[in-house]
């Protein structure tokens, strides 16, 4: 990808995903970190409806309908977020809803350290 991003595992059936959604949206809107969605074990129509209803913060959305790709990432469920470095390596995995604190204290500091 050439730049770091947050891979955010979400689904329309996931209540905690709604809880973190404003935080994810604000992060994407601020431009501090690109956010890519990973729609996990969801139905396309449900996901599209969910994004329409709550807003779509994602630069791109990957779709994992049967969860097989999630296994390769080490996903347990939703929501989960993976901080991916510019070189494509996983820098950090956060299980559960992302909060402003998680962004400031767990994620963004790792990006500063990873700068060449």
């Amino acid at each position, binding site marked *: 990808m050439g730049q770091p991003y947050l891979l955010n595992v979400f689904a329309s059936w996931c209540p905690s995903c709604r809880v973190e959604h404003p935080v994810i949206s604000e992060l994407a809107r601020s431009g501090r970190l690109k956010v890519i969605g990973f729609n996990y*074990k969801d139905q396309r129509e449900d996901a599209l409806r969910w994004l329409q209803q709550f807003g779509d913060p994602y630069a791109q959305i990957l779709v994992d309908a049967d*969860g097989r790709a999630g296994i390769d*990432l080490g*996903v*347990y469920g939703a929501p989960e977020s993976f901080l991916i470095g510019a070189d494509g390596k996983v820098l950090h995995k956060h299980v559960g809803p992302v909060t402003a604190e998680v962004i400031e204290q767990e994620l963004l500091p790792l990006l500063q350290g990873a700068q060449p």
Partner: protein
Amino acid sequence: MCQNQSLADSNAMIAGDLRKEVFALMQEGKTDAEIKAFLTERYTDFVLYDPPLQSKTWLLWFGHWRFCWRV
């Protein structure tokens, strides 16, 4: 999701998916070691009952003693 249940016992969605995956790997003829490696590569040693004693798993083995001191 309860992280301390066995893969066979857990009702968590991911457990069902992983049981399917393990079964598929067994059908492909993968050995126990290969299947364990498949899971630990993705989910770390945390998924093993008996994680290898290495510096990085020290806390899994002996970490509970630290908490006992506080009682």
